[in-house]
């Protein structure tokens, strides 16, 4: 009897397995068994909305993926053959760190709230065909990331629903120095979305933990531009920023964000012709200049100088703010390291005016025409204002009287005749 039982049991169990799906302790299906159904390209399920969802799994693509050596049931733990709707795959079982940072991100939080459009692992990484990010065929390969993000972020409906930045922001990236380096030159070293915004832990820029929050921007840009970050950290702007002065400019305040272009591009805010406008955006603000005891009227005095006028007319070799003050390494003139320190002025001016000597430093650079700041220029201006107005008045008076006299004489002559 015992012998008979041992012979029958497997048969019975096998029969039971096929006859009664869902019986506890049932053996998970093998890949071959899964592919029996899911290898069929036409297999699909109708959705309540009316559309259909293909249930086809490309086995070749799966085998080539990073998970290709595993089994279907590693992820689809509740799969049996045949089966109804399966539970959502949890990647966090094997990737706990990624899941944790994802949960704190704006996508993760949205997903937890049930927002269907919030990106989930598979939206960026794919499903069965996930590859390593170093693999050129991967969705998360550097050259492909922008496309993956834009799948949702260029969708007008999603933008409007979640009040995301508009299309023009995304388009600006594509025309930016980073975007063209990516698209035209195919450079891996260029900045793609995730380099600035992060990957799993993406947060909006107004949150302090976001990579794109103001206080994190220099560090973030410095990942790729470390030499410039080093200069910036030593500058008055960098020190101010690190000291917690929120008004101190960070990279994006001068260069722009998605719109960053080369400095030789006339649309760049740091193109030579645009620099005075960019700097004066802060330095002409009454609040900023009085709060930080900065000298005033820097912009207007510059625009009155030949440098300013020539630059405005398009002479790009004319000195702009950065030509004298520097850019990443700006320091107050009191600092002996500053390019505009009196001791360094001959060298700074000498970059354009050969043989510049100490006389360059004698007299104000931004000439404010007041008796206190520039007595000589003020005197000349007052003299000429008086002189010109007097002479012009005399001219007009002389010409006018001559006319009146002529008219009077003509009248008299006519009267005499009549």
């Amino acid at each position, binding site marked *: 009897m015992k012998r008979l039982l041992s012979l029958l049991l497997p048969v019975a169990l096998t029969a039971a397995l096929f006859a009664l799906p869902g019986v506890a302790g049932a053996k998970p299906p093998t890949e071959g068994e899964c592919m029996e159904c899911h290898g069929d390209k036409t297999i699909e399920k109708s959705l309540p909305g009316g559309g259909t969802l293909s249930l086809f799994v490309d086995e070749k693509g799966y085998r080539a993926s990073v998970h290709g050596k595993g089994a279907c049931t590693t992820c689809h733990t509740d799969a049996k053959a045949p089966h109804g709707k399966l539970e959502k795959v949890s990647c966090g079982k094997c990737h706990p760190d990624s899941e944790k940072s994802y949960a704190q991100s704006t996508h993760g939080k949205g997903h937890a709230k049930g927002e269907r459009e919030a990106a989930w692992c598979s939206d960026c990484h794919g499903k069965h065909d996930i590859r390593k990010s170093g693999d050129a065929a991967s969705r998360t390969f550097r050259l492909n990331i922008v496309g993956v993000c834009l799948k949702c972020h260029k969708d007008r409906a999603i933008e409007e629903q979640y009040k995301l930045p508009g299309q023009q922001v995304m388009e600006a990236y594509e025309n930016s120095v980073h975007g063209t380096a990516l698209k035209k030159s195919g450079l891996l070293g260029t900045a793609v979305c995730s380099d600035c915004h992060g990957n799993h832990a993406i947060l909006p820029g107004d949150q302090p933990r976001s990579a794109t929050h103001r206080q994190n921007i220099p560090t973030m840009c410095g990942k790729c531009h470390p030499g410039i970050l080093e200069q910036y950290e030593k500058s008055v702007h960098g020190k101010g920023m690190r000291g917690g002065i929120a008004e101190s400019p960070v990279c994006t305040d001068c260069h722009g964000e998605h719109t960053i272009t080369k400095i030789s591009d006339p649309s760049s805010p740091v193109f030579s012709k645009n620099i005075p406008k960019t700097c004066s955006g802060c330095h002409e603000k009454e609040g900023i200049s009085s709060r930080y005891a900065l000298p005033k009227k820097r912009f207007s005095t510059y625009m009155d100088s030949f440098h300013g006028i*020539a630059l405005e007319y398009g002479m790009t070799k004319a000195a702009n703010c950065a030509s004298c003050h520097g850019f990443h390494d700006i320091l107050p003139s009191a600092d002996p390291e500053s390019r505009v320190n009196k001791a360094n002025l001959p060298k700074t001016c000498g970059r354009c005016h050969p043989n510049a000597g100490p006389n360059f430093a004698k007299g104000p650079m931004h000439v404010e025409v007041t008796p206190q700041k520039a007595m000589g220029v003020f005197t000349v201006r007052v003299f000429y204002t008086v002189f*010109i107005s007097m002479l012009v008045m005399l001219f007009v008076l002389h010409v006018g009287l001559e006319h009146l006299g002529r008219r009077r004489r003509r009248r008299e002559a006519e009267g005499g005749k009549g």
Partner: protein
Amino acid sequence: MSVDEKKEQPRESLEREIDAVVSAETAGLEPEQAGEIREKIRQRVRAEMEREIRLKTAADRREEARRIREERQKEKHAGEGRMFQRFNRNFRFQHMVMFSSVILLIVTGMPIKFPNFILSRFVISLWGGINNSTIVHRIGALMLVYFMVHHLLYTILSRDGRRDFVLLLPMPKDLRDAVQNIRYFLGKVKEKPRFGRFSYIEKFDYWAVYWGCIIMIGSGAFLWGESIALKYFPKFVLDIAHEMHSDEALLATLAIVIWHFYNVHFNPERFPGTLMWWHGQISEHEIKEEHPLEYEELMAKQAKTAAEVNPQ
């Protein structure tokens, strides 16, 4: 007599030659017709040869052209009387160099003084941008410097230059003339002031150019050679030069546009302008009206020379 004979000789031989050719060609024609043709040709040849003999040199030709022009002028303006040479060729050339340079300087300079003026950008773009217009400005500057040097040499070396310089010096009479002129405008006196070769208006113009050239060339040199200037002068001196250059430019422009243009071109007697800067001549009518003292002097001189030539 002998000179005339010499002239007659080639003429006769040429006439004979032409006669021979005409006879050969008109042999088949009626003698009357042939005679007519011969007479026509002879007259034409004679007129041409006479002209040739008279106009031996280029100078003669120019003189002839001038005479013809003058005759035409006289026919046109019968009331103007004969023409007097007021400005010589050298002086007119100086004036042309100066006004071309000043026009260049104003056109390229004013947009820099008034960058916000609505036409400034357009005027700069006419030259193909600021880089070119600054070069044009420097060309204008060189022309003005040349004019200044030329005029100084003219004043020192030329007889006309020395005479005019003396006549241009301000005199107490100019002040009296100015006062009288104003009173005349107002109808207080019946008589116009009697000006010499240069009225106080013209003297003002002349000395304004002197003053302007000194300031503009001086300050402009500082701005052009800023690196050299800053070797010897502190920066605030350059700032002053910059201010002077800009303000004096405005003054000069206003003086030219209001004072000079009105008095010389736009005043009703001359409107729409005079070409005296081109031909340098003044009519008898005008010189009597504007420079009576000079006219009287000229007449007195002419009478004196005439008396010397024909002492009777």
